[in-house]
Every structure is written in C-alpha cells, then in structure tokens.
C-alpha cells in the first residue's frame, strides 16, 4: 500500500519535473490570461458597470480558452518518446495513467489559474462576495475541463496532424458546462444545490474519462 502511494507520488513528481521545467508553458498560459483581461479592460474602457457584470463570464471563457492551450502536450510527448508503453508495462494501466495525468494536468495547469483569479477579480472589479463562489465553481469546472481535455487529446493521438480538432470537440462539449457555471454565479439563491449539480457532472465525466482515454491510448499505440 505504501509502495503504491510512493509510485503515484513519483508519477506526480515526474509530471512536475516535466511540466514545470516547461515552466514556460505555464507562464504562457497565465500571460495569455492576463493579456486578454487587459484587452477587455482597454476596449470596454473604464465603464465599471459592464465589466463587473460581465467579469465572471469573461473569466470563464478565458479559463476555457487557456486550458485548450495546454492540450497539445497532454499525452503527445510521452507517446512519442515511448514512455507511455514503459509506464504501461510497469503496472500503470492505461486507465490509471489517464486518471493520474488528468489530476496532474489539473494541478499544474489549472491550479495556477485558480490562484491568479483573485488578482483578476480585482482587475475587473468583481465584488469580493462573488469571488468565493467563483473560486468554488471554477475549481469544479476546471476539473471537468481537464477531464474533457484528457479525452480529446488522447483522441488527437489517433489523428496525426489536426491539432485543433481535439480542442474543437472539447469546446463544443463544454458549452453546457459553461452556461451552467456562469449561471450559477449570477443566481443568488440555491447556490449550494447548483454546485451539487455541477459536482455531479464532474463525477460522471471523471468516471467516463479513464475508459475513453484508455481506449484511445491503446488504439493509438497499436497504430504506431
């Protein structure tokens, strides 16, 4: 049992080393995020009203867009270098790899965002009461996005060139999630029960993810 935990821990350590020494990517994502916010502020002008009304929606959209930025790297590197097979032969089933990768994507790509949200909220005048609920719905929503991203980027291994197709599929699937999550924050009542619904969606997708991803990885390795 302890051995097993150690294994998992070092999987995350590995992802950390790989992703963070690609610190550049994280930086790119966050810079993209902030530049886009600046764009909005500058083009709308300092009319605080529109900004603070629209702020939540803008943040959500930017979250979605910037998580698609990191999708290309999700499985591709490990697939090309043959590390996927080696991990598989060493007791990580494809499904398990999918779960671990999703979680580490969440940790290394989405969490930096979530951390930078309070700053972003200050920039676009979102009232502080909302920040709390924003953070919760963001945490859940971004995990959903990680799962969807895992599925679609494993699909992308099956097609050799079209790197945007995966993102297109993710985005169309995440439309309901977006509508719902933006809706949540703007309704005053029933916040808890709505969050529960979002959490339910998360659970469903989190359950589907390993199977879908695992199947895609397996077939991708066969074709290679």
């Amino acid at each position, binding site marked *: 049992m302890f051995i097993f935990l150690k*294994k998992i821990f070092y999987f995350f350590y*590995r992802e950390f080393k790989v992703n963070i020494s690609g610190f550049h990517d994280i930086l790119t994502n966050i810079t993209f995020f902030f530049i886009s916010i600046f764009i909005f502020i500058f083009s709308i002008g300092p009319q605080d009203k529109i900004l603070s009304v629209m702020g939540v929606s803008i943040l959500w959209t930017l979250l979605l867009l910037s998580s698609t930025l990191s999708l290309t790297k999700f499985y591709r590197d490990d697939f090309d270098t*043959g590390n996927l097979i080696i991990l598989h032969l*060493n007791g990580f089933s494809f499904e398990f790899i999918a779960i671990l990768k999703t979680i580490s994507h969440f940790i290394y790509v989405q969490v930096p965002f979530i951390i930078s949200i309070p700053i972003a909220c200050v920039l676009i005048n979102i009232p502080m009461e909302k920040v709390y609920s924003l953070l919760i719905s963001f945490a859940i929503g971004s995990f959903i996005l990680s799962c969807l991203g895992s599925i679609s980027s494993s699909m992308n291994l099956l097609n050799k060139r079209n790197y945007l197709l995966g993102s297109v599929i993710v985005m169309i699937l995440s439309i309901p999630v977006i509508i719902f999550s933006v809706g949540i924050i703007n309704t005053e009542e029933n916040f808890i029960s709505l969050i529960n619904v979002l959490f339910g969606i998360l659970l469903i997708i989190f359950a589907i993810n390993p199977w879908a991803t695992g199947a895609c990885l397996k077939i991708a390795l066969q074709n290679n």
Partner: protein
Amino acid sequence: MLLTKNISLFRADKIIFENINLSIGSGKILGLKGKNGSGKTSLIKTILCILEPTSGSIFWKGKNIEKNLYDFYNNVTYIADKTSSLKQLTINENIKIWKNIFLSKINNDQIEKILQTLKLDSYKNKKTNILSLGETKKLELLRLIIENKKIWILDEPFTNLDSEAIDVIKQTFEDHCKKEGSIIFSSHQNVQINTTEDLLL
C-alpha cells in the same frame, strides 16, 4: 514460460509475419534476426501485447497471456528501439524517477558502479539532451538493471554502441542468464552473442 502458438500479424492488410512459434524458458537467450522491415519490432510488440496478433495466441505460465497480463508485465523489462529518458532532466533525475516509479530496490552504490563502467559518471548532473547517441542508449539500457525483472525484451540493443559497451552488455546478458533470467533481443547486426536459439524472420 512464455510461449507463442502460431501467431501471425497483418498490418494494413500486409502480412508482417506468419505462424511464429516461440518458447522462452529461464536461462535462455533468443535472438530475432532479420532484414530491415522483416517484422522484428512488430513481433516484439506483439509478444508484449501492445499489438494484437491477427491469429494465434500467446501463453504465459500456461495461461493465455491476456488473462494474467499484469503478472506478465511484472516480470518483463522492455527496451524499445527509441530512447525514453526525459531530455529535460539530468541523468541523476532520470534515474531517481525510474527507481521510484519502478519500485526498484537497487541502491545508489550499485548504480554508481554501473555508471562508471558505462563511463557515464561524469555526466551525472548534466541534462540528458547533451549526451551523444551512444551515451543515451547506454542510459536507456540502465533500465534493465534498475527494473530488475526476469525477462528482458530488447529491440536492437546494440545500435549506436561501441564495441566496449557491447562487451559490457554481453557480460550483463550472461550474468542474467546465470541467474535464471531470460532474454529476447532483435538485431540485424551479426553481434557475437551466444544465443541459445535464433529465429530468422
């Protein structure tokens, strides 16, 4: 222990190999020889259950391999024909990750000694992307020792290596055989390895 019965593989409707019967017991070295494109890599991947054979079946310890795949995987180390060390990390970091992910019990002194015989010790703290091709391959072969499994399956283990390194590998192979391990490797070169059996594809 490992047995293939009449396996054949078709890829994109081309016959890659047909009716291959292999058996590997402990203490044996099996060499897969063949020209370029004769299907050595494909056969190895089929044995590892990464590719599904079009017909025929593979047995592990008497049972169909699909039924106890993870037991099989627990006993096998695969060195592919490409290198898997992470280019962003140093040799030491790579070894550390391997050791922990493969739950290896090997201690640091041993690794130190092997690095010395392979002449890699002066690069320990260098990123692996500066290594020469041969050095990268040697690092990859280190996985054999770190994983410390019974069956070694190697795809072209001698490419890019100089004769000294090949001698070290030969020695390692022989030691492994003495310890009741078994080895499958593919090669198109005529390396003087004392195989107990050869298969010409």
